[in-house]
């Protein structure tokens, strides 16, 4: 039945396209296409392409599909735009019913759920030779390349310059600050500017927890499972309690209300955007959207995460794939799906449309060519991503199946600690136990 629906959708899409084409052809003064593409009907490959996004991304993706179909008349692509939360419900049911879209926009949190269960196509035929170092590995599951980085990202602390001005403080030196110095600065700016949060959304941010672990010689995940013990988790919770007591992170109620991951407030109501926070944890590709939502004529400042040693080169950050392109293992047209992903990754025409909307293009040649066309915010992000190159450590492995929920568990137990409902030791043990049991699926 779902199969029929998909065919119906494709059919409807084509019919709509045909009607639109017919209308333009009828319009006075339109330039006729002459012969048409009747020859392309035979053996035409049809592909369904699913993504989640925002209005800008939807527009870009539709435009890319149209451009691709024009250049490749033998391929028919139907787009399936979606919204992040429901996207995964739909993809799971489609995959269960054997009707997964041919090309799938994928997230790091889910890639191994699908990849390690054989649901994703091996993409070894996609050309990644021009990708920057450290941008390919995130798409590898069990040594098999099942996701192509669609844009480079890195976890970042965004700072709202208007709050800092109000506090009459200079931006700190983010290349030398330690965790404790960061908390001191956060507490100072919060009290001087009179805002609730010095630094918002730290408690449940898995990238910062991960760098904290990596600076201590551990990892979130290793190929054998969880890469740390309750002791490290307790150290994190102890640090959070210390920072919160120093008034750097907001009150427990405010931290809980701001949320984290799936429970986080929407971007336009986030503490940083509404001016309630001096700093907040985000990802680099969100700079433009955040600055736009704040409505001012300024951009948020990008600050590096801290390190234990006070040296940015030892903070063990990494290039994250903001999202990836995968293909269904069951696609009827694997070559066509690979060809489209290859086109997105390596063709200037695609980059000219999408620019840095999905993150900085990992292909360095494309990156250089697209640079002058970027908006001011995107140029800043590109500069930042280039600047941190010497600080980038190995790419962590993707969370194994069941590991995608780690951040939510980290935050939930953190809330228990902050409200004094459990000790840091208890919370750390519960956190580790739950993540471990989620991994044994």
């Amino acid at each position, binding site marked *: 039945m779902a199969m029929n629906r998909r065919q119906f959708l494709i059919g409807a899409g084509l019919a709509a396209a045909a009607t639109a084409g017919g209308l333009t052809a009828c319009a006075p003064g339109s330039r006729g296409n002459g012969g048409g593409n009747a020859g392309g009907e035979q053996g035409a490959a049809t592909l369904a392409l699913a993504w989640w996004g925002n209005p800008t991304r939807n527009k870009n993706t539709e435009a890319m599909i149209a451009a691709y179909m024009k250049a490749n008349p033998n391929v028919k692509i139907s787009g399936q735009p979606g919204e992040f939360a429901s996207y995964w419900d739909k993809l799971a049911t489609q995959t269960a019913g054997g009707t997964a879209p041919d090309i799938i926009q994928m997230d790091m949190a889910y890639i191994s759920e699908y990849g390690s*269960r*054989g649901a994703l196509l091996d993409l070894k035929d996609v050309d990644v030779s021009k990708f920057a170092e450290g941008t390919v590995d995130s798409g590898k599951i069990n040594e098999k390349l099942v996701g192509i980085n669609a844009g480079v990202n890195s976890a970042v602390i965004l700072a709202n310059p208007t709050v800092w001005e109000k506090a009459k403080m200079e931006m700190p030196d983010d290349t030398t600050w330690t965790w404790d110095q960061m908390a001191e600065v956060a507490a100072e700016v919060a009290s001087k500017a009179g805002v609730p949060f010095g630094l918002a959304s730290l408690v449940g941010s898995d990238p910062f927890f991960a760098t904290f672990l990596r600076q201590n010689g551990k990892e979130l995940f290793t190929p054998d499972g969880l890469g740390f013990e309750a002791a490290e988790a307790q150290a994190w919770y102890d640090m959070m309690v210390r920072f919160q007591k120093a008034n750097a992170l907001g009150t427990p109620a405010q931290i809980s209300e701001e949320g984290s991951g799936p429970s986080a407030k929407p971007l336009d109501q986030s503490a940083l955007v509404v001016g309630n926070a001096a700093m907040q944890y985000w990802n680099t590709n969100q700079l433009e959207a955040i600055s736009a939502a704040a409505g001012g004529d300024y951009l948020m400042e990008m600050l590096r995460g801290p390190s234990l040693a006070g040296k940015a080169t030892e903070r063990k950050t990494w290039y994250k794939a903001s999202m990836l392109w995968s293909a269904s293992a069951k696609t009827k047209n694997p070559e066509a799906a690979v060809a489209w992903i290859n086109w997105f990754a390596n063709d200037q025409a695609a980059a000219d449309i999408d620019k840095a909307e999905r993150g900085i293009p990992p292909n360095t040649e494309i990156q250089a060519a697209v640079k002058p066309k970027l908006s001011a915010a995107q140029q800043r992000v590109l500069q930042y991503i280039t600047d941190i190159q010497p600080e980038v450590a190995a790419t962590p492995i993707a969370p194994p199946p*069941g590991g995608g929920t780690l951040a939510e568990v980290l935050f939930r*137990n953190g809330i228990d600690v902050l*409200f004094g409902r459990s000790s840091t030791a208890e919370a750390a043990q519960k956190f580790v136990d739950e993540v471990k049991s989620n991994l044994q699926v």
Partner: protein
Amino acid sequence: MSAISELSTIRRTKAKTPEEKRLAAKEAGRDNKAGYLFLLPWLIGLVVIVAGPMIASLYLSFTNYSLIQAPEWIGLDNYVRMVNDPRLHKSITVTFIYVIVGVPLQLIVALGVAMLLNEGMRGLAFYRSIFYLPSMLGASVAIAVLWRQMFEVDGLVNQVLRLFGIPASTSWIADPQWALWTIILLHVWTFGSPMVIFLAGLRQIPGMYYEAASVDGASKWAQFRKITLPLLSPIIFFNLVLQIINAFQSFTQAYVVSNGTGGPADETLFYTLYLYQRGFVQFQMGYASAMAWLLVVIIAAFTAINFYLSKRWVFYGD
């Protein structure tokens, strides 16, 4: 005598000869066929949408099924795992508090409002609609979002409290101590459908009982206890059974208020919300199916207890 009943009397008296009886039977058969035809959409719905998936989920509850790979038979493993799942126990506690506190409170409010509306005031239809409105909206996403904004740190509730000099600085929705109670409040607020049923029930109670009682000098409270409650008890019972079943299946409010996490700190982790997380977030459809069957058993047990206890307090007037 109305025209219709006259007609049926004529028919009854007419259909006497065997020939006419046969015809009448045939007609009844045709009526039955039409009846089944009208029933068909429901019947198809029952088999395809209810019974089919239920049997499938019973099977899946004995498997490890990730949605992506084919289900793998693991016997009772899912049920065994449920015994040692702290979040499952938490979700059962949360749901029980919600049902045991929320349902009686909601019914009390519904009955109270229904009795007020039964006083024969002017513009009754208007008030009835107004009071019913929350029930139409209560399960909607918009109201859950509104709830979030009312009960946050700088929300409406705290602003009003501060007007009265109460230094309210917590977030009712984000403080683990209070979060569930805001959702119970939302549940109580959607008292419309039991209220309408109560109102209909109150209308059925003959006024003469009250007249007789007041002549005998019975107070309002005595009238309520000795006349209203016993005569309304079948309606109360009906509402109680229905609302308990509904409350066990509550999902939307908690889902929207906590963005699907059951937070803060799992204090609003309703059973169905956890079931959804297991099935669709963690891809454990087998475990989620087992949870669904446990819920069926819990609801069936509650309903059975309800029916058993009803013999002691429900009065059918015979």
